[in-house]
């Protein structure tokens, strides 16, 4: 009996042409921005398991995952939308859906993928399996101009939310009936929203403003209340520093009722009290923050910085609101991604052609992987997080 089972499994392997069965929960992708390639990585083994090329211009690439955690949807700068099979390690489907895109999102039910475009300005929505077009939403404003769109996220209720950089608007799109998208537009939300994030419970959509101080807040439980301004008086009268890299709003740190966001044009991380959305403090940091990312348990926040101070990562204790460590991973730290339960963080160091893995408790380096000009790092655990 045993022998027969063994024989069968050997046969199965031979027929499949692959070595072992495996899950994808500890896999992810590392974008190699300059070469239009990525690496599929294993976060348990700390190694790359498959390089993959032919993904076009990945100079600003982001990734979402199918809910079975098998497929990575890669959004490229050139408007490319690529569905990568991370189990087989190949490109399953690829389309060029616009001239210039910035990111995307996957719907609550996993059936729709939306892409945020600069050119032509708007959002396009595709079937997640076939990549056939489902809906097109031009971001039209004023006298028929099209706005660049940013900060696209999925939200509960089969909705997508995004911001219009040039128009200063937030649009909420209900895709419950894919053939008839229901769009709610919020106007005059503030000048030049540059990115946005969603609280992990899917309730609050918050857009950062480049053209003025403060953040724009939309309560998705009560969209009828409209968009309100948060921290409107923040930094009033202070001279901002030149901004050499737009901050990103992604991930959301909450601890003791505080949220942590990058300040624009300042060497500070802002602490916002979520009960009344008032400023609860500012933490002086090494440079202008780009990513302010919470460890999944919310106890630490890791911060990287804009050019020319981008060789550094700092760690904030969210209880004391103090800096607890300053790390120097190397030249041009672009992104950080925590393992699903946060014991490690992977950091891409572009100009060193390396990805460094740190233990988050001791903040010491545990592993190094080689990668060509690595930028974004995305792990499959994002598949089950709203807004990522």
């Amino acid at each position: 009996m045993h022998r027969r089972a063994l024989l069968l499994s050997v046969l199965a392997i031979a027929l499949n042409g692959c070595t072992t069965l495996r899950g994808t929960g500890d896999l992810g992708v590392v974008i190699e921005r300059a070469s239009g390639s990525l690496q599929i990585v294993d976060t348990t083994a700390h190694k790359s398991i498959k390089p993959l090329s032919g993904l076009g211009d990945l100079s600003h690439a982001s990734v979402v995952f199918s809910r079975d955690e098998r497929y990575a949807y890669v959004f490229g700068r050139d408007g490319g939308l690529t569905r990568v099979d991370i189990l087989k390690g190949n490109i399953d489907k690829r389309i060029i859906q616009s001239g210039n895109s910035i990111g995307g999102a996957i719907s609550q039910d996993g059936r729709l993928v939306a892409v945020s475009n600069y050119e032509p300005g708007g959002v396009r929505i595709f079937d997640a399996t076939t990549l056939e077009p489902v809906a097109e939403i031009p971001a039209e404003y004023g006298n028929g101009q099209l706005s660049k769109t940013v900060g696209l996220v999925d939200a509960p209720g089969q909705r997508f939310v995004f911001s219009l950089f040039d128009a200063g608007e937030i649009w909420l799109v209900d895709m419950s009936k894919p053939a008839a998208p229901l769009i709610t537009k919020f106007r005059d939300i503030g000048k030049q929203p540059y990115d946005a994030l969603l609280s992990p419970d899917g309730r609050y959509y918050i857009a950062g403003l480049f053209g003025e101080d403060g953040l724009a807040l939309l309560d998705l439980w009560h969209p009828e209340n409209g968009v309100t301004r948060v921290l409107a008086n923040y930094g009033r009268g202070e001279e901002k520093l030149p901004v050499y890299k737009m901050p990103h709003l992604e991930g959301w740190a909450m601890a003791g009722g505080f949220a942590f966001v990058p300040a624009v044009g300042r060497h500070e991380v802002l602490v916002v009290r979520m009960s009344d959305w008032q400023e609860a403090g500012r933490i002086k940091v090494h440079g202008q923050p780009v990513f302010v990312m919470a460890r999944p348990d919310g106890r630490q926040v890791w911060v990287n910085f804009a050019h020319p101070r981008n060789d550094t990562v700092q760690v904030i204790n969210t209880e004391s609101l103090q800096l607890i460590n300053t790390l120097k991973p190397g030249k041009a730290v672009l992104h950080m991604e925590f393992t699903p339960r946060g014991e490690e963080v992977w950091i891409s160091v572009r100009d060193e052609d390396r990805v460094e893995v740190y233990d988050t408790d001791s903040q010491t380096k545990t592993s190094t992987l080689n990668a060509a000009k690595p930028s974004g790092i995305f792990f499959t655990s994002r598949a089950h997080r709203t807004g990522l």
Partner: protein
Amino acid sequence: MSSSLTHTTIWLMTSSTLTLLLLTVGVSPALANASELPAAREAELIHLLRQDCGSCHGMTLKGGLGPSLLPERIGTLPPEFLINTVLEGRKGTAMPPWKSMLNREEVSWLVEQLQKGVPDAP
């Protein structure tokens, strides 16, 4: 080398009689000097262009949050305008001033490269 360029500009503005002289004698060496940055610095500048300018204008410079920097869009714009935009930034837009990191000579060289088209290799 940046001073020689500055001098050229001043001469052109202040002395019309010397203008011809400068055009025939003085300017050509000055322009030749402008492209004689150390090769290592030129490589750094191209890296900065691709990677850091590229974070808004796209790594291939075809545009992103910021507009395209390809020759078909900026090739015929006055170089002085482009140089000043890089050095001083543009108020009301996301374009920051780069003068704390780059001098006029370096920016002139970058603008020259941009207007004729930077080879596509990253």
